[in-house]
């Protein structure tokens, strides 16, 4: 036990020390904390005014988020078990003379810490939640703990499922059917309740159902939603009941692990290896792009493209193979989140939905194919003019950006009852932001390509993006003030024109990027 405490304390100590040794990381942490402080402070100001939406709605949203996180973690259990341990644990702790139960508790502690860190981004939603529901910081922390617990219990469930189904295909199928079947039943019930009186009362009835006894019976997510009633609505009795159910559930899982298979080491090995290979790949500069586990190859051959143009057709082919329908799985999730946000916060109007969509767009653009192309040597080695290679490699993002914009803004436009012109303006503005984010990435690579600190690169990327976006934001504000009668479409048009001009300027100034940038595989 002493050894595990020593390990935990030393890892924590070294992480703190690394902040001093790596100033870029320190700057990033300070920056994030400052941003968080700003969000909390501005949220406090927002909360002083206006009336708030019913708290049941927030509990319903919390239930949905907990359920998604829990089911995603559980789903991983079928293929690779829980990720409670890393490969260093497997190689050093599993082989050490320490009781397997003690090692398991060490893993659980590690997982809980990781889950809390993963949930850190929730704190940045304080402004929105404070403005709409008037929640306090304490209540937000309550939601964060619930989020972390949903991941944590999902991971332990994943570990048990892997132990029970590994190598037993029939049992695995049975468990899948049982879990997804139950989830589908609960979802069906929820939808039926929400649509009981047509679409007029959908939100109120949906929230009511999520706070009802049936959905509260949904394992983990329902119990955690029940537990969140304490901090959110003052029903502390429900909090006690929800937490007690979670504690009993955890107790049952641990009993299954120890009684059923005390030698659980094998059950976490696969996950540890997968995690480690991802870390190694990142260190060695062979980052693999997130892609579906099973890829349908379909028609083979690029078929088109000559010289630099081949990058465009290669990207089209890679896109075809890595997408679910028109978009990648990540893009579809972000689109669903944006649409749900517009639905729940339709009072915020176009501005709040557009801001949310643009915030989430950052993750799809910066994780786009062009950025991955820069980690391979070919784009630098191929004997074509650098500007030509740059433009062809970027061109592959245009169709993706267009479909993404349509998938997001047609439903959002219908929810917010926008005109066709306004929806079209949203699509164009989103595409202009895709161009702007990409140009910011190119500029950072051109100017600071040799910087190997990921933290510093992220900070630079953020600053450059803000710098490029400022003229557009200023133009949009100016149009809104000076020509307010022209409506949202004119504001978005001004924003788009400035974004496109700034992006073109950045690309022109960085036209020789592929000649002078460094292959930065970090």
């Amino acid at each position, binding site marked *: 036990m002493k050894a595990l405490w020593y390990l935990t304390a030393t890892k924590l100590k070294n992480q703190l020390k690394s902040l001093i040794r790596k100033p870029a990381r320190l700057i990033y942490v300070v920056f994030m904390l400052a941003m968080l402080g700003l969000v909390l402070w501005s949220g406090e100001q927002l909360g002083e005014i206006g009336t708030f939406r019913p708290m049941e709605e927030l509990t319903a949203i919390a239930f949905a988020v907990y359920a998604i996180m829990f089911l995603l973690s559980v789903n991983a259990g079928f293929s690779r078990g829980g990720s409670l341990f890393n490969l260093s644990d497997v190689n050093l702790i599993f082989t050490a003379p320490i009781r397997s139960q003690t090692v398991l508790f060490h893993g659980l502690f590690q997982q809980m810490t990781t889950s809390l860190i993963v949930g850190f981004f929730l704190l940045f939603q304080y402004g929105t939640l404070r403005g709409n529901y008037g929640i306090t910081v304490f209540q937000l922390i309550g939601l964060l703990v619930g989020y972390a617990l949903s991941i944590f219990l999902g991971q332990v469930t994943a570990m048990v499922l892997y132990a029970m189904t590994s190598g037993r295909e029939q049992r695995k199928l049975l468990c899948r059917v049982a879990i997804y079947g139950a989830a589908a039943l609960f979802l069906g019930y929820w939808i039926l309740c929400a649509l009981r009186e047509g679409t007029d009362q959908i939100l109120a009835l949906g929230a009511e159902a999520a706070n009802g006894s049936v959905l509260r019976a949904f394992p983990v997510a329902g119990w955690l939603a029940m537990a969140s009633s304490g901090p959110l609505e003052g029903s502390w009795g429900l909090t006690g009941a929800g937490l007690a159910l979670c504690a009993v559930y955890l107790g049952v899982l641990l009993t299954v692990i120890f009684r059923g298979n005390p030698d659980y080491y094998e059950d976490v090995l696969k996950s540890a290896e997968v995690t480690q290979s991802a870390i190694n790949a990142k260190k060695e500069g062979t980052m*693999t792009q997130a892609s579906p586990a099973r*890829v349908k190859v379909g028609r083979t051959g*690029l078929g088109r493209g000559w010289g630099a143009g081949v990058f465009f057709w*290669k990207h089209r082919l890679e896109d075809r193979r890595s997408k679910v329908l028109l978009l990648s799985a990540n893009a579809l999730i972000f689109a669903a989140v944006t649409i749900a946000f517009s639905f729940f916060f339709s009072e915020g109007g176009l501005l709040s939905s557009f801001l949310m969509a643009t915030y989430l767009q950052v993750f799809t653009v910066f994780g786009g194919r062009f950025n991955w192309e820069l980690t391979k040597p*070919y784009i*630098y080695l191929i004997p074509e*003019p650098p500007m030509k290679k740059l433009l062809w490699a970027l061109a592959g993002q245009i169709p993706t950006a267009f479909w993404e914009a349509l998938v997001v803004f047609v439903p959002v436009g219908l929810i917010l009852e926008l005109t066709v012109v306004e929806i079209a303006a949203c699509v164009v503005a989103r595409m202009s932001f895709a161009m702007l984010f990409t140009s910011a990435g190119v500029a950072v690579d051109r100017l600071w390509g040799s910087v190997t600190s990921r933290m510093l690169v992220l900070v630079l990327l953020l600053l450059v993006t803000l710098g490029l976006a400022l003229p557009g934001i200023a133009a949009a504000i100016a149009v809104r003030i000076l020509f307010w009668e022209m409506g949202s479409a004119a504001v978005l048009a001004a924003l788009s024109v400035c974004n496109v001009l700034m992006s073109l300027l950045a690309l022109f100034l960085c036209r020789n990027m592929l000649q002078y940038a460094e*292959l930065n595989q970090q």
Partner: protein
Amino acid sequence: MLNLTHVTKRYGRFEACSDVSFAVEDGQIAVLLGPNGAGKSTLIKCISGLLRFQGHIEICGADNKSLEAKRVLGYVPEMPAIYDMLTVGEHLEFIRRAYRLSDGKEYEEALLERFELTDKRNKLGKELSKGMQQKVSICCALLPRPKVVIFDEPMVGLDPHAIRQLKDTFHQLRQEGCSVLISTHMIDSVEDYWDVCHIMMRGQVAATRRSGETAEQSLEELFFSITEGTEEGKA
């Protein structure tokens, strides 16, 4: 021909390569040896035009960043450069199209056959083992028939058969008059075909030897004598 003149690469205040100069003649195989962290991979990336540096690097008389130089350069990176979503055949088609090789189809088939990849033609990059990925990476580098070929640890992950094929390829490239530079840790794997050897330490070329100059000493003995400080460099 490959020519390096006073090449220096700095990361901040750290000098990864310091004032390196050497040449690899046409039809010559040069090996770059050195302990971990000696600067071999950094130097190779500078030659391939993937890193900025101070000094001058010429490939067949052209600046290494120029299109003329890129047309005649082949580079096999340490970690296989593979696209997950392309099949083996598509990797080679990609290179053929990117380098505008209108008559590369036959050579593509020959390379696939030589490296036993013909039956893997429709396998995706992500489905290949590391050794297989390395073979695809080698084929991609050789397909444009480069005049200067740089290999960074090319044998890591290869099976004995592929290593033999690769050695035959080195010989063939030499016969065709190519300049070949190989960076490796596996000294015994290059023992029987090197023409010139550069041993790097702490970012500098600590010693240069030509084959035949050291008849009484194996490459391995030479390497240890220099890296462990028992012999002065003769750069």
